[in-house]
């Protein structure tokens, strides 16, 4: 029952996975919800990269976004509100062989999970973190979230949200060990695909803030961006997100931005609604390289070490 099957690695090359292998059940999001598009893109990337379903884990917290693991054909962990990241980090800590994805939202990650967000960026463990940022609490029916625009009428603030929203991009850029920060939009599947793919290819903690429409509770928040792409700033650079010509035509407002340029990234995130790769540093150490040390130590060596530990206290 225990132990690796010796000939198992030979099977891998003979297996081919189709989209169906990454699919489970029927997604129960509202019609028109941006989450459907993100799920499809994640499944396509899994297929295109031929990720082993058994080695892939989708981790989430609580919220509309966090239903994503249930629709994946991989392993999944649908845990507690705000706590996806500690679980994801724990999964990765002694199992660096696993491909970890995190689905979270603006309430889950930037409000109840704030502490974990900050520290997970600092741990920089290799995982792809998708924040479904729809600027509202959807599952609990329209409460103000940290990214809700000031003045937005919600059920907790019927007179309008009283505070300036939190900017998740500038906050993330300010955290030590930040290694990958991008923003994209759910309503452009091409850019969404390329951005998440780049995030997945990065070894480290990749945070993708996805501006995501909630047709039921925050439809008007992104409407102007959808209708007038010139309000978005498309980031271009050879080291940035791969851009098809169609995208370049779609977004009249563009800026060439080197994703290694942190201060420029900060200014862009502070003053615009950027679409693209803000920051990417492939050389930040990953915590799992520390936390997984010794994971393969043999029983005999462990016995020696345990006896040595006893010896230390022997009288």
């Amino acid at each position, binding site marked *: 029952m225990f132990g690796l099957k010796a000939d198992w690695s030979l099977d891998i090359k003979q297996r081919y996975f189709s989209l169906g292998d990454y699919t489970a059940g029927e997604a129960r999001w509202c019609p028109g919800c941006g989450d459907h598009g993100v799920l499809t893109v994640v499944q396509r990337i899994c297929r295109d990269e031929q990720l082993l379903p058994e080695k892939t884990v989708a981790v989430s917290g609580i919220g509309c976004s966090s239903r994503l693991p249930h629709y994946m054909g991989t392993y999944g962990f649908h845990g507690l509100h705000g706590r996806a990241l500690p679980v994801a980090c724990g999964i990765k800590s002694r199992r660096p062989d696993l491909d970890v994805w995190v689905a979270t939202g603006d309430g889950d990650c930037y409000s109840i999970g704030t*502490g974990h967000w900050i520290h997970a960026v600092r741990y920089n463990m290799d995982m792809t973190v998708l924040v479904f940022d729809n600027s509202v609490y959807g599952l609990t029916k329209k409460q103000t979230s940290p990214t809700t625009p000031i003045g937005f009428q919600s059920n907790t603030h019927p007179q309008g949200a009283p505070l300036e929203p939190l900017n998740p991009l500038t906050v993330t850029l300010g955290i030590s060990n930040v290694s990958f920060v991008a923003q994209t939009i759910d309503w452009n599947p091409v850019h969404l695909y390329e951005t998440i793919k780049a995030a997945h290819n990065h070894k480290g903690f990749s945070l993708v803030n996805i501006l995501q429409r909630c047709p039921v509770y925050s439809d008007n928040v992104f409407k102007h961006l959808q209708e007038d792409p010139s309000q978005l700033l498309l980031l271009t650079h050879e080291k940035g997100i791969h851009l098809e010509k169609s995208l370049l035509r779609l977004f009249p407002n563009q800026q060439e931005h080197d994703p290694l340029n942190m201060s420029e990234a900060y200014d862009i995130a502070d003053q615009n609604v950027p679409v693209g790769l803000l920051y990417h540093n492939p050389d930040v150490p990953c915590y799992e390289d520390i936390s*997984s040390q010794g994971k393969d130590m043999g029983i005999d*060596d462990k016995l020696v070490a345990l006896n040595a530990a006893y010896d230390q206290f022997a009288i």
Partner: protein
Amino acid sequence: MSKPSNNLQMVENSEATKVPVRIDEHIVEIVSDSGEGAQKAGQTFGTVSAKMGNGVWTVEIIPAEIKPPARSPAGASGIRIRLGSHNMTNMGDAADLVVALNEQVLYSRIATHAYKPGTVILLENKWITDPDPKIREQYQSAVAEFRENGLIVHELAMEDECLKLTPRPRLGKNMFVLGMLSYIYSRDAEKANHEIDLTFARKGEKVVHLNQQLWKAGYEFAKENLDYWYEIPPWERETTKPLIVTSGNQALGLGVMASGMDLVSMYPITPATSASHYLAEVFHNIGGFVHQAEDEIAAIGFAIGSSFAGKTACTITSGPGLALKTEFVALAVMAEIPLVIAVVQRGGPSTGLPTKVEQGDLLASLYGEPGDAPKVVIAAATIEECVHFVIMARKLAETFRTPVILLTDANLATGVQPYPRPEAKAEWFASPIDQSPWDKGVDPFQWNEETGLSPRPIVGQPGGEYVLTGLAHTTESKVAYDRESNQRGCNMRSRKLAALWSTLKPPEIHGSPEGELLLVGWGSTLGAIEEAVDKARAEGYKVSSLHLRFLSPLEPGLEEIFSRFKNIFTIEINYSDEADAPLITPGNRRYSQLSILLRAQTLVDVDCWTNVHGQPMQPGLIYDEITRRLNAMKGES
């Protein structure tokens, strides 16, 4: 200014005729400001005594503040060493002999009833010539007050003696004190000097030599000036197994390593953290890793992630941390994730008594989560059990696919005792993670209706893909809100405890199997309870005790055992209303935590006797309660 002379009874007998007084046991304390090395001296004294075959229990006296002012009662720092010719299982009652480096620190010890009339105090006397008149005055009035209260105070020029050897007596005085105690208790000189060698070897030969000289000076000083000379014969053990000496928290760390877990995820909290400190020093030697998380919630979340991925992990905390972890504990119950949660209890509620003992987290461990969250709860009663119970906890967690809460407390955590060296067994280590293909026909929660148990797919097993969820779910781990699925899930999770219960044996009774009075305890009070029971039984009292290790599920056979005794009460370090307190009636009296459990489970009228003094339970107090109750029962009949 003329130096005061030591006001000692000078030794009158000649060396040739003098013999040490043979005693069965003694309780010794060294008390000082922090930073004077009292604990090091005491630990060394304890180690030498253990090596000479004595039973030993040491416990540190920890100041209430980080940097308390010098010469203040709040700054009392030091150590208590109880040594004797039998097994020492607790810190005992009042001290017999105390070495104090200033008089002020004694006040806090007196306030906790650590001394009795007749306790010998060997007190540094340099304060009587202090340039500060206020200090001189404080010193004199304290000494007078101590004597008035029956303490036997000897004022000794320890500092002056040390000055003969070192210009910095504050750093070396502890070895001088060790020398004094070594003479008084006839400790083996070679063994003592070997320990000094081990302690200071890193600092070079010169330092070793100086400290050995200080030890010798203390030894000679005591020999010439003191009339206390004792011999404590070794304890005749049944076993000749080699021994190790650790604190309870070090034992927890050893247990984690021996159990085969290789991840501890923690957040600093007193008094649990020293277990992680120990692991952080050595865990990598065995391939393990200590993760310091950003908070208590992340600490358990990280451990749960690791466990979910096939590496059962451990998180170590104390009451306030357990409170923060509640939601994750419930998730681990709901989603049947193996996990070990070690809780080193301290005084509560809220921040409470961070450095002091209480057994106040029992009900929180059992019932802390909203909803029904059955889980295994066990409590270590000895330092040795702190090793073995971690090993058992991991086994139970994996076998029953459940979180296991292992309760210890500040008394075990800081107590130090010799015990048989644990074994190291290959089968205790975790097997390599199973990555073989999973039979797709088997659901991730394919519960056995009889036992509630189910096989668990591990991430990496092809064909086993499932989504773990904290929502109500089916055997396939699919979210289900229908009435049958939720009822069934609750049934199955609860049934696992019944399955575990059916494998347990009834607890053993200490003393005779029937009688007038039965004491029931759990956790670190074991030694004190049994000592008190033994003393009362030797005097003819019909009292017995039993000690529970399993709190969830409770051990079987309790109702039948209780039927053999006229009166039953629990001894616990947690709060209960005294029956005769104002406004308290049988209708509103709040019982202690174990007695609530036992009353509910057995329908027996189990009484309780508890306190929340923040101190380890003392055998003398329990003995007094036993005799009070039995004499009252005699009066009634």
